[in-house]
């Protein structure tokens, strides 16, 4: 399994990774190949074209890809973990047959719109709303910072269908929206610090009418499933951060061995270089143990929601620090984009915010701790 990912990365991803970062274009051909190779339905049921495998396997694949082109894991995560997770948990058999099979094969690209321009991830404050009119819902409003827009064939969106309960979040419904739906407007791509190629932007709904049977799950009660699919995406951020950190570390190590200073490799000349690399490596091995220990819990059905969030926090932190130190070891050359190491720091910075910021995740964990929901074992 991992060899398949390694070969894919070596032969197809690595040769174009810098180009994707430079142009910012969605890597459509790589995404298609990811579908052909089975990477888009790893944890999905075999009945709908998935492989029915565990999250540890998915993590190993994501880790390999993140070593070369982190943004491809962002494209895949929004598609397979967020949208796919919701379809799998909430979809009717007919919806799964129609959409989940094409999600697993990559025939359809999916996007997931959750964040509102008002209130961020606090759906209570969101203005976007849906009103049932006969056999159709009429939807108005916006979703911002949505990945895979423009290239997506299908959007899963979260929209208020009644007043939202601030505790249970009841009142939010999920809908399946086909790309050609009248009233759906796709905004332009945001220019970002990192994740170039994620096709991120705003989608707007203006009297957008969608059939009643495009409601995903029970009306007003999608947030429990959303919490699970978000946790799955947070879990994947752990191995993604790990892969990015490994790539930046390896580049820095190789550079320190090949860069001659005072007649010897920089690694041998400067104790500080060695110590930096040892610290980077230690953080990587700590993260690896945390990632695969937590995923073993997930696969055994023993995952704590807090730990899923911690994995994203730690994955982003380690990737950011290791990539920053890698640039430092390179010196001035590390600041040149052609070198290819600085993009890992830019992507790590976005990983610390995109999908859910470290602070938002800490707030959730802190609340769980405050009310005794996450006691020490």
């Amino acid at each position, binding site marked *: *399994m991992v*060899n*398949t990912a390694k*070969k*894919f990365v070596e*032969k*197809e991803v690595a040769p174009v990774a810098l180009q994707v970062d430079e142009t910012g274009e969605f890597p459509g051909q790589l995404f298609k190949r990811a579908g*052909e*190779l*089975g*990477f888009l339905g*790893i944890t999905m049921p075999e009945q709908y074209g998935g*492989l029915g*495998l565990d999250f540890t396997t998915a993590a190993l*694949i994501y880790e390999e890809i993140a070593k070369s082109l982190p943004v491809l894991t962002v494209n895949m995560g929004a598609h397979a973990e967020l949208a796919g997770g919701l379809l799998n948990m909430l979809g009717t058999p007919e919806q799964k047959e129609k959409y989940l099979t094409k999600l697993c094969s990559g025939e359809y690209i999916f996007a997931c719109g959750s964040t509102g321009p008002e209130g961020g991830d606090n759906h209570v404050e969101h203005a976007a709303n849906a009103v049932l009119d006969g056999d159709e819902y009429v939807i108005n409003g916006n979703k911002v910072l949505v990945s895979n827009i423009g290239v997506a064939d299908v959007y899963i969106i979260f929209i208020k269908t009644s007043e939202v309960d601030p505790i249970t979040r009841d009142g939010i419904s999920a809908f399946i929206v086909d790309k050609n739906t009248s009233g759906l407007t796709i905004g332009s791509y945001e220019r970002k610090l990192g994740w170039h190629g994620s096709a991120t932007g705003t989608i707007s709904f203006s009297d957008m009418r969608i059939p009643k049977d495009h409601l995903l799950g029970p009306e007003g009660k999608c947030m429990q499933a959303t919490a699970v699919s978000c946790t799955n995406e947070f879990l994947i951020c752990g191995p993604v951060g790990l892969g990015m950190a490994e790539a930046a570390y390896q580049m820095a190590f190789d550079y320190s061995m090949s860069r001659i200073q005072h007649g010897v490799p920089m690694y041998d000349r400067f104790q500080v270089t060695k110590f930096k690399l040892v610290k980077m490596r230690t953080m990587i091995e700590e993260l690896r143990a945390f990632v695969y220990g937590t995923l073993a819990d997930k696969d055994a059905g023993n995952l704590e929601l807090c730990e899923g969030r911690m994995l994203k926090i730690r994955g982003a932190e380690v990737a950011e620090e290791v990539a920053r130190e890698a640039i430092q070891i390179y010196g001035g050359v590390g600041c040149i984009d052609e070198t290819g190491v600085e993009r890992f720091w830019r992507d790590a910075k976005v990983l610390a915010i995109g999908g859910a910021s470290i602070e938002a995740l800490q707030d959730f964990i802190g609340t769980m701790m405050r009310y005794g929901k996450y006691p020490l074992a």
Partner: protein
Amino acid sequence: MATIVACYKWVLDEEDLVINPDRSIDVSHARGKISEFDKSAIEATMQVAAQTGDATATLTFGTPDVRKSLKDALSRGPATGYWVGDAAACDADALVTSQVLASAIRTIDGTSLVICAEGASDTYARQIAPRVGALLDWPTVTSVIEMKVEGDSITATRKLDGCLETVTVNRPCVIAVLPAGYEPPIPGLKAVLSAGKKPLHELGIAELGCDPAPAAKVLSSQGFIANRRNVIFVDGDASDKVTSLVSALKKEGMLS
């Protein structure tokens, strides 16, 4: 139903080989893999089977370690795996290997086409296909980059020095392919998963009636170390630099 058999060799991964300062070769950390060229033979098998609808199988002869290769081989498409695992394979020469393979092929029902690589990525001796063909008394076509199959007739394009040659041959036959034209795709995860469920058949050297004693023995192996001259031609324009490079190569005896 006719069967197409792809033969492959389990070799040491050349990227894991270490050349010691005394030019001895350290293989202690080398992992095994299917010879890169042989992956093209398997791909050619699948492409021909897509034209004919024939059954497909893989066949390999190696040390007992070769069992590790079966899942990778079958993830590339063939339906059945045949293997001969024997410690004697470690010292087997081309004669022994081809005798074992030919004997094994005789046991596979309906075999009408055997596809090998032109050579393996470790020795590239180019002997197996012609020898297997001779032992089976089947025609052999080597250096093939393209095949079209109509019934029992195969029209093959051979890539030779300076020209392409088109030949026809009737099955049963042995074909040796070059990697060009048969780029092996990366097996998808579904193919990897299903490979573990495909039927395997282990064959023994004794039951095949083969003598594993090699006629040719390897006495020693020494690594090749490239010595760089570290000469950079900087004077003049591009044309002058090329002229200087050619002169230097002639002086070294590399060009005549």
